[in-house]
């Protein structure tokens, strides 16, 4: 199948010929969700995704605008796509859909003095982190890894342990260009009336509200083609690449950058340590280390992982309390010594015992080790990754672990591991993440059920969750958050995309999935319209 000929011809003219557009099935097959991707092999992917009818690769914002206007004229559904890390939810959902691959918008420019980098949608984190560090600054690389699109990451996720100092991702979005679903262009912040994107909000009410909810809209409200990303001052010493692939790392200048691990006597002490580190306003990161991570880090293959992990028990996991702290000498070596002294005071008070750590960084500053997540079973998803308070963050994972027991297998046995938590914004927020793993070649019905049941659990237990908007059935979560945030979201969608031409049927895609997947129907105990309020594609 392909998109209609007139539309295709018009699109071809926009991108200057056949080189940057294709409906060749072999090319289109390359844009299939999975296999082996994030959220791979689950019911949502099988039921809701398909390959594109055509792929187009614009080079400029103007080309993107023209493409979108053609899509509106010929009623061609489309989905924006940069690196495609985020699995099925950012792939084509309907037949004959145009995939707009943004990787040619790949230039970036750094303003060293004013701490921002202007990037196009195809720019990934790896080069901008290096350039930032060359200029004495740094950015956050999300768990997706340095190969993820910086813009896509910042309008969907955008955090890591470094968020302890750097803070929430949406605060780092400065001047931005958004092509609306009808092709009109909105320039936000200081781009609204000028060419310098150094400032993010205004004029007046802040339309950055359209860019993301907590965890993003998966491109259903337009296409961000350009964004100035705030960087933050780092320290001046170089971090030197070391090792041989795949075991590479950054050697750290120990007087200016150092990871320190502390073994805590209890979870209470572990949590208290994070509160105290935040109050003391020290460090560049403060995170729990799940025992799980250690096995992943040590293992070089699946078998080795299982050998290591197989020695753990509920008891060892329950009694493993590590706080991992990144010290950074932002000001000077003396400042880092001050931070370390304060940290040692806190740990002495709480009974923390320092454990040896490598003088290198293997994951968070430059790379983010997402590849390890596939090691154990072949498939994984972060079923929740939630920024709230440290109070919520340090309890949330246990609820997940309890619920997960019922769905293990098909979920990987992990002895009740309650996930990961860390401090954000110097302890003003806490972050928790709960990851699940499964073998996509087995029956994944239980995984689909577990995923949806977590939404009900969060509602029941009054937890905030990242999995709102298009990540769960909108009519399940909508009435219970806000309340009725779904009504406003749908009104905004209808206003800016009355044809629902932009990535249909998101944000109602998970609702449709539950309707279409027979095995999901027994779980549907919430009210929704007989016919979902959107045009059918």
């Amino acid at each position, binding site marked *: 199948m392909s998109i209609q000929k007139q539309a295709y011809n018009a699109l071809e003219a926009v991108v200057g010929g056949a080189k940057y557009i294709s409906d060749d099935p072999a090319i289109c097959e390359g844009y299939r969700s999975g296999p082996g991707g994030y959220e791979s092999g689950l019911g949502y992917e099988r039921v809701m995704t398909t390959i594109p009818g055509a792929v187009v690769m614009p080079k400029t914002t103007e080309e993107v605008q023209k493409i979108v206007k053609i899509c509106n004229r010929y009623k061609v559904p489309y989905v924006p796509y940069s690196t495609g890390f985020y699995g099925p939810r950012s792939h084509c959902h309907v037949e004959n859909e145009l995939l707009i691959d943004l990787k040619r918008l790949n230039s970036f420019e750094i303003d060293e*003095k004013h*701490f921002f980098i202007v990037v196009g949608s195809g720019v990934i984190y790896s080069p901008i982190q290096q350039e930032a560090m060359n200029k004495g600054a740094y950015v956050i690389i999300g768990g997706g890894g340095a190969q993820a699109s910086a813009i896509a990451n910042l309008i969907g996720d955008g955090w890591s342990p470094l968020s302890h100092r*750097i803070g*929430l991702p*949406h605060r780092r979005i400065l001047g931005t260009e958004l092509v609306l679903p009808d092709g*009109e262009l*909105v*320039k936000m912040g*200081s781009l*609204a*009336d*000028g060419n*310098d994107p150094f*400032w993010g*909000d*205004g*004029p*007046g*009410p*802040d*339309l*950055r*509200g359209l860019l993301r*909810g907590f*965890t993003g809209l998966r491109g259903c409200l337009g296409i961000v083609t350009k964004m100035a990303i705030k960087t*933050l*001052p780092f320290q001046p010493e170089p971090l030197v690449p070391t090792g041989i692939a795949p075991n590479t790392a950054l050697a750290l200048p120990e007087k200016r950058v150092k990871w320190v691990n502390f073994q805590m006597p209890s979870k209470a002490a572990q949590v208290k340590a994070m509160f105290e580190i935040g109050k*003391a306003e020290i460090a560049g990161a403060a995170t729990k280390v799940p025992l799980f991570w250690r096995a992943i880090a040590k293992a070089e293959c699946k078998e080795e992982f299982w050998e290591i992990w197989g020695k753990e028990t509920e008891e060892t996991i329950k009694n493993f309390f590590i706080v991992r702290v990144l010290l950074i000498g932002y*000001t*000077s070596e*003396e*400042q880092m*010594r*001050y931070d370390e*002294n304060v940290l040692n*005071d806190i740990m002495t008070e709480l009974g923390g015992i320092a454990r040896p750590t490598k003088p290198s960084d293997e994951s968070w500053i430059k790379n983010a080790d997402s590849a390890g997540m596939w090691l154990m079973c072949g498939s994984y998803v972060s079923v929740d990754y939630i*920024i*709230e*308070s*440290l*109070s*919520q963050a340090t309890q*949330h994972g246990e609820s997940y672990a309890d619920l997960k027991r019922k769905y293990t297998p098909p979920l990987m046995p992990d002895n009740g591991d309650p996930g990961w938590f860390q401090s954000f914004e110097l302890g*003003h927020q*806490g972050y928790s993440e709960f990851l699940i793993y499964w073998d996509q070649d087995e029956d994944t019905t239980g995984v689909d059920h577990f995923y949806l049941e977590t939404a009900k659990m*969060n509602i029941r237990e*009054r937890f*905030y969750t990242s999995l*709102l*908007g298009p990540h769960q059935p909108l009519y399940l979560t*909508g009435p219970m*958050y*806000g*309340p009725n*945030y779904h009504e*406003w979201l749908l*009104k*905004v969608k209808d*206003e*800016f995309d009355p044809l629902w031409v932009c990535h249909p049927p998101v944000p109602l895609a998970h609702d449709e999935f539950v309707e279409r997947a027979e095995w999901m129907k027994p779980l549907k105990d919430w009210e929704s319209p007989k016919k979902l309020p959107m045009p059918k594609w």
Partner: protein
Amino acid sequence: MSIKNELAKILGKDYVSDKKEDLAGYAHDYSLLPPGMPDTVVWPGNTQEVGKVVTWCNEKNIPVVPVSSKVHFHGSTIPKQGGVVVDLKRMNNILEIDLDNRLARVEAGVTWDQFVSELEKKGMRTIMPLLPPGDRSVVTDTLEREVPTNVVYDYGEPMQSIEVVWPNGEAFRCGSASVNGFPESKSRGANPSGPGLDFYRFFQLAQGTMGIVTWASLKIESIPRMDKILFAPVDDLPYAMDFLYRILPRRIGQECLLLNNIDLAAIVAENMPDDFDKLCATLPPWTLVLVISGLLRRPEEKIAYEENFLSQVLSQEFQKMALTDNLPGFPGLGRKLLPMLRKPWPSNVPYWKNRVKGGCQNLFFITKPNKAPVFMDIMEMVAARYSYPVSEIGSYIQPIEHNRACQVEFSFFYYPDDAGEKAFVSDIYRDAAAAMMNEGAFFTRPYGDLAPVIYDRAAGYTMALKRVKKVFDPNNIMNPGNLCF
């Protein structure tokens, strides 16, 4: 039946008025904008009452003007099309102070006086703008993104979750407070983002045009154990800016700001006008103010590493920058100014910007710090064109987030009873604003006369903003006549 009687059915007759003397106070403010009378004022006591009033107004298509403070400077609460003023002054509860998570949740009527004093009792503070009026609403200033004097935090914004009443009267909680049953929930309201969209963004800088914010959660910080205030006289502004580019990204200092002699004199003068005139004549053209602080743990060590860093930079790179713990010729300035930076301006004393002549028109915008001197030159040129003595214009530069940007603010002082002077200031203000815009000044907060100019220049943004407004407030009842609505 009158509006008053209808609203009295909702709130009770004691909390509704259409008496001229009650309405008159809402008809004007400290701005140069023309007055406008509301038809009625109501004083709801809680969110439910706000919702009922707004529902009724929406059904009747009656404008609603939310008011939270007793003092206003930009004309945004002057009713432009009559209607009902919803004054939230009775909603002045500090709903919680959570010391573990370092957040406080305050209703819209909570004033700076109230908030700072309650926080102090618990050893806490909030980052705050320069000397906000003590009886101004904390929530309003936060929503309006008044720029804080504190430059050290990477994450800038203090606001977390908020509760709003939509223009259709429904209450809604943004961010992680959106969970069912909040605050009786595991979520504490620490995340402003979501659900679904970043709704809270639409209420920032909105001047009450998108709905009524009834409470907000704000970050709070510990009060430092030790502080040192440092001053440097500055007559070479670009040099001072270079110095700030050098030190602020290294996370030096808590509060940091630059005031010209006029603004500093207006703040610290004991007696007006004698003391003020004398200070204006003797203070340096600019004064850099930098506070370094020792926090809860090892405060001396923290002060020491900051001082050592400063001393190295000063001796090796910026020998002309005389940064010391007192401004030469002004003994005791530090002792006076330091506590002022952590408190609001006292409610029982004329506001510092109004001390000079009684009235003040501010012109402020965001720019990059290295462009601030250019804007000073432009102001001189505009002032010269009007034969306005530049030596009477207050100037204030507020670095933002490690000096990656700054707010530049000019103060034009005037006698409120002098219609001629008011008209003159109004003209120079508009002309100066246009000249600054042409040079790249970014006006994030479009007030009064400047709003149409700013929105004309930002056509794409304006178009999208109107579409968002149409979704949330299809009848345009919320504070009509402001921004581009």
